[in-house]
């Protein structure tokens, strides 16, 4: 057993997620609550073999930064001004490093550093729209359609909230119907003078179109589908350019199937909204029409505001 000289500092052994083990001055490492707990309660970190396993989010590079922070702040004698100046210089990092740092600091439960870095990140993203942030930071939009159309549950008398909820409810129905028709199309064995493959490819190409589409266009499509349903001959004056392609496809399709007796079923293929679901509400159609008009109006107004 080697003698430990009294004036030598004691060290703590830390192991990062990639397996790298390093030793750090005890007083610096103990500034982190998580490490402190491991040392005191579990007596870990006293030797290489019992190195404290740091959480996954702490990479060696980030650990270096965190230890710099701890090394500075654990010294008791520093004034507040000195600490502030150090902090301001410390957070002059790019966004990705800051994100790594805040993640790691959170897993080590180092709250002052978490506050400092999250404030810096907040300053970076403040004032930007969601789209701008997605572009700048390359964030994938992983919210499902259903989540985006969650109704607003707060009970207020605000008519805007009511209309918005109705709009969302309609879109959710459309979404469900679209899902259903995707399943149904394979099972449908009735009439077709076209092969199932042709229809599938038509519907799939239509689907790709719709995924990138904003709510306003969905609504216009719905209106178009309604018109299709009521009046089989194609309605051509749609202002939306991205649907010109669909219009021509559907019109050609229409002309071919005009003679078929079960036109409505083929139209069901064309439109992604099943005819039944619209009348499910138990509301009489006239009132439904009025509500739908209100909702469309509102959605249009919304979009003109959002586009500013």
């Amino acid at each position, binding site marked *: 057993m080697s003698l430990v000289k009294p004036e030598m500092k004691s060290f703590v052994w830390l192991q990062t*997620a*990639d*397996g*790298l*083990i390093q030793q750090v001055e005890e007083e610096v490492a103990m500034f982190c609550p998580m490490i402190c707990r491991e040392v005191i309660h579990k007596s870990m970190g006293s030797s290489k073999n019992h190195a404290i396993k740091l959480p*996954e989010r702490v990479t060696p590079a980030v650990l270096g930064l965190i230890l710099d922070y701890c090394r500075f702040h654990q010294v008791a004698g520093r004034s507040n001004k000195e600490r502030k100046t150090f902090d301001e210089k410390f957070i002059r990092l790019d*966004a*990705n490093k800051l*994100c*790594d740092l*805040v*993640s790691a600091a*959170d897993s080590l439960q180092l709250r002052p550093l*978490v*506050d400092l870095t*999250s*404030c810096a*990140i*907040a*300053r970076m*993203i*403040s*004032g930007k*729209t*969601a789209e701008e*942030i*997605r572009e700048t*930071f*390359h*964030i*994938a*939009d*992983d*919210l499902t359609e259903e*989540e*985006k159309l969650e109704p607003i*549950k*707060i009970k*207020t008398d*605000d008519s805007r909230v009511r209309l918005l909820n109705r709009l969302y409810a309609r879109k959710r129905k459309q979404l469900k119907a679209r899902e259903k028709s995707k399943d149904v199309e394979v099972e449908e064995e009735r009439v077709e003078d076209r092969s199932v493959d042709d229809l599938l490819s038509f519907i799939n190409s239509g689907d790709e179109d719709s995924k990138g589409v904003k709510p306003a266009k969905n609504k216009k499509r719905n209106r178009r589908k309604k018109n299709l349903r009521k009046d089989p001959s194609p309605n051509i004056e749609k202002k939306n350019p991205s649907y010109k392609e669909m219009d021509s496809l559907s019109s050609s399709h229409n002309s071919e199937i005009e003679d078929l007796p079960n036109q409505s079923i083929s139209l069901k293929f064309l439109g992604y909204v099943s005819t039944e679901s619209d009348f499910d509400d138990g509301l009489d159609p006239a009132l439904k029409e009025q509500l739908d008009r209100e909702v469309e109006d509102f959605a249009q107004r919304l979009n003109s505001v959002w586009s500013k």
Partner: protein
Amino acid sequence: MGSGLSSFLLICNSTTTAPPVSPEPGLGDLPESVVGYILLHLTPQEICTLASLNHAFHHASLADFVWESKLPKNYEMFVSRVFDDDKFCYNLCKKDVYAKLSTPTFIDGGTKNVWLDKGTGKACVLISSNGLAITGIDDRRYWSWISTEESRFCSVAYLQQIWWFEVDGEVEFPFPCGTYTLYFRLQLGRSGRRFGRRVCNSDHVHGWDIKPVKFQLSTSDGQKAISQCYLSTDPGKWNLYRAGDFVVEDSKVPMKIKFSMTQIDCTHTKGGLCVDGVVILPK
């Protein structure tokens, strides 16, 4: 020993079973709890905008600890003052509490309208002329009530003419800490709608340019403010006339405020004024 150590480290390095991390982990990979800390530093409007960013942001924006920091410290007092049934508070998440408090609510029998300012979390109070003590309000020679859609309270007090003009009021409310300004909302002339157009009748407007109107404000903890000004001779426009500021330091005690607007020089009459009420807004 040295070689053993380095080979040991090599082994450690080669047996990494950590899941493959994308080369540049960034904002999109932060866990929900960390995102919550970031949202603490943003305004409520920004939080709502960012809720549509991605999954983590969406869930973090619903977190109670984020919204609790946005609510005023005395929000429980606020809730019990504004809503009779404060049980709703326990069923709602803090975000919904904030949303509910931010929508204007009528209290005290419809004479006051209160809400939290969305950006700062401070209280805003509107007191209708119904809730003010107006000298001579019952005398039809001087004052009358006209209903109008230009006021949140649907009716305003209209002065034809009077010698002693005095409007007093007081309010007791648990204001959150901060600085607030009190205004009187007034309009010279009587506006109405004729054939779908807004018209203003300024036949009775007189006497405001002779002497200024005096505004006074005092609080239960001793703050006072006095100011004087001439009412703007721009008829048909609603103006906010500033009476003064007051500071709320202790939000645990509801602040009691007395205010008044007077023009009591009885050598001349004045008239043609619409009084909507008093507005208290955070500075």
